[in-house]
């Protein structure tokens, strides 16, 4: 007999609807207004960072920006459910989550600015490098969790990917490993409906992506990805389950990519602006704000404080990204191996010679 309890609900879990009305759930509790107000603060900062980066990429201060605008509730929830010792395995679209984990805003943007590939020490923040090759990081997450189990550590790993990435073989291998070895991993799919131009229907014919979990022998759940309360409840319970030795699970968040894939993309070629407009009405910030206002948990003073804090983060980011730091060519050779090689030393010396000659203006 298949275990029916592994199946996700047919309708995504929602605790606060788009109008800000609460729908209490018998399985998933709504967090306290205090917790949600703190969550709202993170949402405000996250939105501000997305807006700021959108400007910075247009000014040429970032090489590229894959925005998480509209997906901020997912970014905030993925980080909120982690304990300090837990690990996050993010993608290129999750810079905001990386920042919320404590990485300085400018260091979270190093990859997208183009100074280096990863601007933070993963061990310091318990955040793996943002991964661009789709779904590959899910296997790293699985191995990390496996090591934690072998070492007897209570670490839980949250692994992020988009719905497009679920088509890659690595996604399936990761799910299977996690289930077979009963590992403390939560696979968190942000289904934002588009993989660059390709719609969800071209990635999967399944009833939902969360339904895929049952085939591997782990539970799946679907959740409204623009409802922070629901995300905290569903992801929180998946993390609790993993920590208690209950094994992996898959959470699919239904959300929407409000902007083009990156600044380099032209989304008018493949989607209607009417569709985008529909999702404006489901904005994660608007609904939580109206819920908290209704609960008298959010007043003008608090809101102004959040806005000021968000402005400060944006200003920090601007200052850091507007600074022209001379790139250090030595870095190119310094980290390739733990111990450099004679060949790399020779190549670095030859580049140094070139740089010295051009500084002296003696280049042919």
């Amino acid at each position, binding site marked *: 007999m298949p275990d029916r309890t592994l199946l996700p609900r047919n309708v995504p879990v929602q605790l606060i609807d788009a109008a800000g009305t609460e729908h209490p759930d018998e399985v998933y509790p709504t967090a306290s207004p205090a917790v949600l107000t703190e969550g709202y603060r993170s949402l405000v900062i996250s939105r501000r960072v997305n807006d700021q980066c959108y400007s910075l990429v247009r000014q040429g201060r970032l090489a590229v920006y894959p925005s998480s605008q509209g997906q901020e509730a997912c970014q905030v929830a993925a980080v909120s459910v982690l304990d300090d010792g837990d690990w996050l395995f993010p993608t290129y679209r999750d810079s905001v989550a990386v920042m919320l984990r404590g990485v300085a805003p400018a260091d979270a943007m190093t990859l997208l600015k183009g100074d280096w590939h990863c601007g933070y020490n993963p061990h310091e923040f318990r955040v793996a490098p943002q991964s661009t090759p789709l779904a590959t990081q899910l296997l790293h997450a699985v191995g990390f969790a496996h090591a934690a189990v072998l070492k007897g550590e209570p670490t839980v790993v949250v692994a992020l990917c988009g719905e497009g990435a679920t088509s890659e073989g690595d996604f399936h291998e990761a799910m299977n490993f996690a289930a077979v070895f009963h590992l403390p991993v939560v696979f968190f799919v942000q289904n934002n409906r588009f*993989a660059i131009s390709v719609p969800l229907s071209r990635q*999967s014919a399944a009833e939902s992506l969360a339904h895929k979990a049952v085939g591997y022998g782990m539970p799946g759940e679907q959740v409204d990805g623009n409802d922070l309360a629901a995300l905290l409840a569903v992801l929180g319970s998946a993390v609790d389950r993993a920590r208690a030795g209950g094994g992996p699970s898959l959470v699919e968040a239904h959300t929407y990519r409000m902007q083009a894939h990156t600044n380099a993309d032209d989304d008018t070629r493949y989607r209607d602006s009417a569709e985008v407009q529909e999702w404006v009405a489901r904005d994660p910030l608007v609904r939580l704000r109206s819920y908290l206002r209704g609960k008298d948990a959010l007043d003008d003073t608090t809101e102004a404080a959040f806005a000021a804090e968000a402005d400060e983060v944006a200003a920090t980011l601007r200052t850091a990204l507007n600074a022209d730091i001379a790139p250090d060519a030595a870095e190119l050779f310094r980290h390739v191996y733990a111990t450099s090689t004679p060949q790399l030393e020779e190549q670095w010396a030859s580049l140094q010679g*070139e740089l010295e000659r051009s500084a002296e203006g003696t280049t042919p």
Partner: protein
Amino acid sequence: MTMLREDQPQVGAGVETLSMAAALNRALADELAADDRVVVFGEDIGALGGVFRITDGLTARFGEKRCFDTPIAEAGIVGSAVGMAMNGLRPVVEMQFDAFAYPAFEQVVSHVAKMGNRTRGAVRLPIVIRIPYAGGIGGVEHHCDSSEAYYVHTPGLTVVAPSNPQDAYSLLREAIRFPDPVIFLEPKKLYWAKGSVDVSSTATIGSAQVVREGTDATLIAYGTSVPIALEAADAAAAEGRSLQVVDLRTLSPFDDATVDAAVRSTGRAVVIAEAPGFASMASEVAARISERCFSWLEAPVRRVTGFDIPYAPPKLEHFYLPDVDRVLDAVDSLYWED
């Protein structure tokens, strides 16, 4: 700059000025129109027309059955191309970027490259795998790899890398008609460079071309390094040194005859490529010249390549990429005294 090209089109009927991107698009359209066994598929190649717009308009013109988006799964794309080719179609697939072709590596190496040999020729695979390759576009990591060495090292693969719109057009058409699998490397930084294209002109896979005559030394280049070689030859000419330039066009199988003749005529050779130099295409070219042209050489063959490091991030890219100065330095080192 003088370009000596036997197939240089004359302006007239069938000759247009096109970017390489437009030339590739045209080649795909012309083959789709000419042969209904041709199917084009990959990621974002339908409505979007590909992230580089190489397949722009093809789905609208030829329909979803001939040109379609797939799920994001490179092993799936190449693996299913094998099955399609076994069943009589001629798949042309796109890998979105060089480094995103790696999930398909097993299919490429274990099946695409070997099927003809395994089946004693009973199953040939007329597949084209198009891969935008190399850097120079300020891309973040995994968007600028020069991955040609992996492919040229694999027996059974034919590997092509055009450097101009005409060759891009002619070689892609030829590749689609080719009986065996072709890895078609498209230098993305040259996608928008324009040139004249004669759609009636044909190219031969497996033939290199002398694109500039010269008598003092031979520069051997392909894909992204050809414009650098030509620019270096211009600069050298201003200093009174006459450099010949060979565009390999096909990396494997290798056109020894053209390269041997060119190098023997000058006695000096510099190979230019963007990929890391160790165990690279450039190494193979240098080794072949050393073995086959030793008695004609006045100096050891030099390589100007990328450093042996992962591709640099955008802000450091300019340190990494071979440029004209590096080429001229290498030329200067070719034992000119006496």
